[in-house]
């Protein structure tokens, strides 16, 4: 039997797939591009949701990973475009426009940075954790602004979208397909993690740290692992976003970006597997509809966010699927 939330999730997947397909055949490339944005931003949110929803880690620094993924793509592509190697010593490392390699670099680099920043910031909790993750993100932001080698404040352009074997990534619907596939893969990975032993313990540590310690499991290590996986997923989203816009800039690292990623998660429903998908879709729709009517559409977004936080903690998905928070570790849970 499929639950109501399962139905919503299925509808979201088909919606996200059918809208751009329809747009493609009706010759509306702009809508395909918008859908691609939804998929990529949702992916960034899926990354954050693992830390925030399952781990209870309120990170305001996820722009850091988004930016690192973006700059991984931008830097590698810029070297490939100018035929200058990144390093000549000790080994020659060339730039590349080959997406699988770029993604791998984006994922590994974000994971490493998540490991280092997480190892420090996870020693704190609550407001301090929020502040430290924020500070790390801002460090990267100011660093890229003041680092002239890769465009500084002006950012970097990717003149021709990076390549993927067997596809023409310049065709919007094909690039959408890649982003959609990445999103689906991440959702499967996060769903599996949520139902694993690691997920059970991580989720329990969010609810009651003393309990987890008393059974001989160290919450710090769980959270660090979650932070790393979370950062890697958001990093991959950053690399795709760079290719969508064919441009990266320090703005990817800004705290506003961290805030937006968190808004997707909260709008859609914290700890709901598909929350970020619903949230990112709603965000983009609002941006298009309200943004067309007024330059101050963020006020309305803020109001909506306030309503969600005050009256609908389960977000959009919670509102439709019923309030009870789905126990993220799977079986059991509700009994009625």
């Amino acid at each position, binding site marked *: 039997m499929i639950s109501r939330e399962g139905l919503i999730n299925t509808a979201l997947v088909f919606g996200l797939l059918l809208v751009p397909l329809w747009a493609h055949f009706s010759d509306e490339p702009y809508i395909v591009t918008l859908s691609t944005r939804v998929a990529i931003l949702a992916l960034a949110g899926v990354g954050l949701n693992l830390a925030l929803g399952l781990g209870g880690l309120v990170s305001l620094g996820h722009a850091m990973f988004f930016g690192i993924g973006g700059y991984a793509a931008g830097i590698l592509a810029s070297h490939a475009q100018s035929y200058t190697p990144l390093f000549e010593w000790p080994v020659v490392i060339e730039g590349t426009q080959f997406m699988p390699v770029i993604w791998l670099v984006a994922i590994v680099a974000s994971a490493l940075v998540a490991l280092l920043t997480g190892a420090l910031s996870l020693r704190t909790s609550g407001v301090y954790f929020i502040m430290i993750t924020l500070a790390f993100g801002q460090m990267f932001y100011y660093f890229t602004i003041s680092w002239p080698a890769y465009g500084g404040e002006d950012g970097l352009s990717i003149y021709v979208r990076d390549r993927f074997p067997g596809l023409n990534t310049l065709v919007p619907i094909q690039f959408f397909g890649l982003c959609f596939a990445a999103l689906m893969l991440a959702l499967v990975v996060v769903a599996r993690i949520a139902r694993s032993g690691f997920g059970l313990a991580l989720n329990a540590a969010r609810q009651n740290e003393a309990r987890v310690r008393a*059974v001989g499991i160290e919450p710090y290590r769980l959270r660090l692992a979650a932070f790393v996986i979370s950062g890697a997923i958001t990093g991959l989203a950053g690399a795709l976003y760079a290719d969508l816009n064919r441009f990266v800039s320090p703005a990817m690292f800004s705290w506003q970006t961290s805030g937006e990623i968190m808004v997707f998660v909260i709008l859609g429903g914290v700890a709901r597997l598909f929350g970020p998908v619903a949230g990112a879709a709603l965000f983009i729709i609002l941006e298009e509809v309200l943004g067309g009517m007024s330059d101050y559409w963020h006020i309305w977004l803020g109001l909506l966010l306030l309503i969600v936080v005050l009256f609908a903690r389960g977000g959009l998905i919670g509102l439709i699927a019923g309030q009870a928070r789905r126990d993220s570790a799977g079986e059991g849970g509700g009994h009625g």
Partner: protein
Amino acid sequence: MAEPVLKIEGISKSFGALKASDDVSLDLVPGEIHALIGPNGAGKTTLIAQIAGSLQPDRGRVHLEGRDVTALDTVARARAGLGRTFQISSLAMEDSVLQNAVLGALGARQKPLGLFARVMKDRDLTEVAMQALREVGLEEYAKFRVADLSHGQRRQLEVAVALTLQPHVFLMDEPMAGLGAEGSAQLVPLLQRLKSRAPILLVEHDMDAVFQLADRISVLVYGRIIATGTPDEIRANAEVREAYLGEEDAA
């Protein structure tokens, strides 16, 4: 007497001017229930916390199975075989009863937790967990959310999770508090059976249960142990009667 499984020596702990533990020494031998009684605020929970590792003593040592574990943290002590139940139920409230028990079994297994396999489909873990739930009489509630349980049921689950750990020592902080007469009557035979699996350091206010169960009793008052002995010795001890038992001794 057999080698003690748990031995604490000269534990002292102050909170400012308050001496919550004052040079406390006691031990726990195989097969026994050692009850720790004392009035509210005597420092029982504080002592349990120092044995379990969540609170560092100012002075004194904790030995588990002959090994000095004073420097180890809670996680390492749990892994070394200490199974603690909390006075105030400490559970994952949004999770199901079974998930809480599986968490215990998962921790006790001391293997990698697994990142992709479905933990609730792991037969080894769910069997240990269900067995523990059966022992405390919660098997019918396996699928309930902990938040939907009654207070007494949460106390039972607290004991069940400790069972899944298959510890070498049980540290139980008022497992019967709030259970009611019926609940206590259910738990007494369980603890009676458990002590042959692993000795129990039992903090309890329910004097009927204590005198029924305990092989030895230590009385803690203002952080000091004022007497240790068999239930009969404690009943007869004038200092204890004066300091603590009072009218309850009439029973």
